[in-house]
């Protein structure tokens, strides 16, 4: 978490748009395109104010032609621009996946390192507000699976700004996923913990460095994004019985193996919490890292909480049954506290 003493609190949405604005000021090759990123300011406010300041030459509303405008970022970046491309919801990327996973992600490698694509793909993830199966997914595991894409998901405004500036400066394609429930939008429930002090100056947070969201000695919870705050709340609720450490990965690619391994070696217990689908994703990856490098230190089987391989259902009670809750995290910790 931010150790900065900045007093100015920003929502995550404001922190992201400020980061983009600063990058646009520093580097004329940075531009933004996507659906409703212009006068509307982005459905989730991530491009608020940019159109008014930079105009339609550098903040471009696009048709609903994702293959075309995401693919266009490939050529534009090869020719020296640094596009930030927003596609509202991560769920919508299916229509443009070929441009992403066969080209954007691979061209650097296939070209023997001669072609670079400094592109940021920015998108909203997550559920919890009854938007059903095509508007509530996280899907970061899908992108992290593809060699050549970096994957970033901040849990708070300080990290969001620093990670966005790093993403824009990076010479590789970066998927920047922000959780809708962290953005500080008036019309959507938002976790208070996400709005934190953010320095006005421009700063970068290097990828691959996890943050300790809560230090602890008895168990390790590895998580990312909105689940960080749930994990911290659960850990606080049972602090008298078990002292859990919460690790915020911040980036899935690259992943901070050392942070995971060091913590597990100290605490001897690992719970992975992910709002993405369980199988073949982050939770399995983190468990594998622990098994590879800290197996002898584990005193209990690794536990995972994630969406149990079902589409996100619409009805509130159904949705609540599949998205990992603070209660479910607490239950795992409590069982461990009882000696399980």
């Amino acid at each position, binding site marked *: 978490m931010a150790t900065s003493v900045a007093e100015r609190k920003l929502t995550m949405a404001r922190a992201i748009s400020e980061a983009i604005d600063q990058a646009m000021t520093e580097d004329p090759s940075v531009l933004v395109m996507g659906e409703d990123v212009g006068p509307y300011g982005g459905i989730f406010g991530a491009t608020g104010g940019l159109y008014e300041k930079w105009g339609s030459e550098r903040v471009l509303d696009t048709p609903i032609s994702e293959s075309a405008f995401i693919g266009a970022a490939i050529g534009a970046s090869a020719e020296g621009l640094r596009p930030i491309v927003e596609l509202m919801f991560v769920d919508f990327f299916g*229509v443009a996946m070929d441009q992403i996973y066969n080209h954007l992600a691979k061209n650097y490698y296939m070209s023997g390192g001669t072609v670079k694509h400094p592109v940021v793909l920015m998108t909203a993830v997550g559920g919890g507000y009854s938007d059903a199966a095509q508007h509530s997914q996280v899907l970061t595991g899908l992108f992290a699976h593809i060699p050549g894409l970096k994957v970033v998901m901040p849990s708070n405004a300080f990290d969001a700004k620093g990670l966005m500036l790093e993403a824009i400066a990076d010479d590789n394609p970066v998927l920047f996923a922000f959780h809708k429930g962290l953005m500080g939008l008036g019309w959507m429930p938002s976790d208070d913990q996400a709005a934190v002090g953010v320095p006005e100056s421009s700063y970068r947070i290097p990828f691959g460095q996890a943050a300790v969201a809560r230090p602890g000695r008895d168990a390790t919870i590895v998580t990312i994004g909105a689940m960080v705050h749930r994990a911290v709340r659960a850990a606080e609720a049972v602090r008298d019985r078990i002292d859990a450490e919460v690790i915020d990965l911040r980036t899935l690619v690259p992943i901070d193996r050392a942070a995971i391994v060091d913590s597990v070696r100290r605490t001897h217990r690992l719970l992975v919490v992910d709002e993405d689908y369980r199988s073949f994703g982050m939770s399995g990856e983190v468990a594998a890292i622990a098994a590879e490098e800290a197996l002898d230190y584990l005193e209990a089987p690794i536990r995972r909480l994630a969406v149990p391989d079902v589409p996100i259902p*619409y009805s*509130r009670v159904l949705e609540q049954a599949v998205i990992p809750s603070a209660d479910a995290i607490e239950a795992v910790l409590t069982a461990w506290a009882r000696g399980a």
Partner: protein
Amino acid sequence: MTADEARAMYRMMRLIRRYEDQMAEIYVEGKTPLFSIAAGTVPGEMHLAAGQEPVAVGVCRHLRPEDAVTSTHRPHHVAIAKGVDLKRMTAEIFGRQDGLCGGKGGHMHLFDPAVHFSCSGIVGAGFPPAVGSAMAFRRAGDDRVAVAFAGEGAANQGTFHESLNLAALWHLPVVFVIEDNHYAVSVPKAGSTAIAKNSDRAAAYGVPGLYVAGNDVLAVDEVAREAIARARAGSGPTLIEIETSRLYGHFQGDAEGYLQAGEKDAWRQQDPIPRFRQMLMERNWLTAAEDAEIEAAVAKEVADAVDYARQSETPDPSTALTGVFAAPEVSQAS
């Protein structure tokens, strides 16, 4: 067109309007004083189609229950006109167990196979499945047709062009209907589309393309009748673009700051329902008493559907974990 037919169309338009107005009211239930998308009787996004009744009614009136329709994130008008069970549709929107999908789908994902209706929250997603339904109908050797409805914004999606080409190449019984309500969220048509009329794009695929101006149900009726008859007769696909207007925002809660001054007022003044009523009355096809009867009847139909939804139980949370695969179930859960 007989007076009875015209009155039936009018009644259907009134039913849709009543439904959408009722949904707008119910949507804010539990969301005041502070609006939260997650709160209330009906949470999540809500895209209403008031103003777009002529499209749904003018087209679907030429369809039979066994014809297939795909719709969009803004599906209620088409669903109602296609004959989707109003009670079970409403229960689905309420997330209840008696809903069309047991509460798993919601307002953007309504499925009613009894009348071959489906929709999707992904823009442009409905074109290819309609082509596929048309393939199946042709193979079955009968005269069923498929109709894909989508917004003007969706006509810039690759699926639109690929599907038109495929349908034309294979000469399939499918009709593409573009609902031109001038905007895709905040982006006006001219800001997203290189030509003024998507219907002109039909020329690129060698199929007829027709633009219906004025949000006029009778004009839609005429063009749709011919296109659907062509498809049934085995003469191939047609593209129809219909000018219409979106009387609510893109979604409920949309502040619509992007609209031009007076734009919404102009649409309201051109509201297709009062215009149609006036026309019917001038032709003596509708009396004031009949109009009142229709109003009462559609209000009751909607109220009954809402009552049904309210009385339906919320689903058993454990059902969230079943039904990912058709039988036999596969579980990867530990």
